[in-house]
């Protein structure tokens, strides 16, 4: 083994690390130290430097409550998982007992023959409906993907300013802000036209960006779930619930775990 090759291997050997010393490749290179003084000097200097860096890394102290927080969080996480929000329940039914199946089949055949190819967005909506995700959630997901900061109707760090602004423009304005969002600064708000109705969105930021979408319940064109529901679509998570005469949707990039218990 050449000296340079040995150096490449010896730099993998950490001071006082038994596993490294027992690694066959490293052990072979270590044997050269007995016969090569220059390599030995280089290695000793490397080890001294590695020891300084290692002690620096070892000195990074996690917060004193981190372990307790992990264990407590894990228990809370488990408990929350067992109270999952109910998804629409579809009772299995033997298909040939249902007369609607025949009608649906006939309808599908007619659609295939008569109806020209739908646009992609329509297909996406149908697929979404089939998978139990409300079309409005799909719509919001698409809007968020293309949204840029300059598109905000108003930018302000105060939620109440944005609520007042939305109300003044006749757009749905959340009558209340969910508890945990209260303390978060806002970025701005924007409104969307959805099936001839207005949706408003206020964006909060606190590490992650949370979007609170509000619609008037009376305007809401989709079927409304009676209980709060959580969905994942693409790279986002959504929570949808009804509050008084308003429909609210909270969304964040991530999974269901990233949607905290705001309501």
């Amino acid at each position, binding site marked *: 083994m050449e000296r340079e090759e040995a150096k*490449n*291997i010896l*730099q*993998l050997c*950490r001071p006082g*690390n038994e*596993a*490294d010393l027992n*690694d066959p490749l490293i052990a072979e290179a270590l044997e050269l130290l007995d016969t090569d003084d220059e390599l030995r000097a280089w290695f000793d200097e*490397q080890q001294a*430097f*590695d020891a*300084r*860096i*290692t*002690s*620096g*890394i*070892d*000195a*990074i*102290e*996690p*917060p004193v409550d*981190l*372990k307790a*927080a*992990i*264990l407590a*969080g*894990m228990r809370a*996480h*488990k408990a929350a*998982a067992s109270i999952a929000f109910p998804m629409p329940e579809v009772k299995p039914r033997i298909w040939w007992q249902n007369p609607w199946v025949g009608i649906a089949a006939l309808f599908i055949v007619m659609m295939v023959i008569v109806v020209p190819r739908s646009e992609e967005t329509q297909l996406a909506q149908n697929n979404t409906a089939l998978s139990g995700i409300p079309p409005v959630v799909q719509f919001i997901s698409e809007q*968020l993907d293309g*949204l*840029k*900061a300059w598109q905000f109707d108003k930018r302000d760090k105060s939620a109440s300013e944005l609520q007042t602004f939305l109300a003044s423009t006749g757009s749905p304005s959340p009558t209340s802000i969910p508890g945990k969002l209260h303390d978060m600064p806002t*970025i701005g708000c924007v409104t969307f036209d959805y099936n001839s109705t207005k949706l408003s969105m206020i*964006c909060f*930021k606190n*590490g*992650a*960006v949370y979007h609170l979408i509000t619609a008037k319940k009376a305007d809401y064109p989709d079927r409304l779930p009676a209980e709060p529901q959580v969905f994942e679509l693409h*790279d986002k998570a959504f929570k949808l619930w009804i509050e008084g005469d308003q429909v609210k949707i909270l969304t964040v*990039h*991530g999974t269901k*775990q990233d949607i905290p218990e705001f309501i």
Partner: protein
Amino acid sequence: METDPELNFEDIVSAYYQPLYRFGYSLAKNEHEAGDLAQQTFFIYAEKGSAIRDKSKVKSWLFTTLYREFLRRRRKDERMSSLEPEMLEVVGGSVEPHIRRSLDAHLAVEALEEVDEVYRHPLALFYLKDLSYKEIAEILDVPIGTIMSRLSRGKAQLRDIFKRKETETSDSAH
């Protein structure tokens, strides 16, 4: 003999929360983010850990999961920064970790933070001492030869930065 899963989980947390936090800090350069990453890693373990058949792989599974979670969050932050440029300020800000003991330790951590990311990740895992170079290669999903060359170049860069910082510190002390 069946191990109590609750106890088992606590043992695993006790054994790895510190190195995971340190690795998280070296990736995110932020104390809060490091804590979040460590916590999230154990949540994922609580959900999916039962699928790990070979229990000797738990350690590298945890480090791999934390690393992937870091990459996932960073992608998310990049997407969000296109939505809201101010997010960069929030995400990018470094928070000093609690570092006990010496000035030397501070210099080491500061120097490591300045190393190019491509070298910093393997170096951080290397200096944690918990993982072999083969495991580091698996976690970062690169060939062993690549890890060797990254460690070599990374160490050279780290040494230069460390020396510069040492000189600056001694100059300012005089």
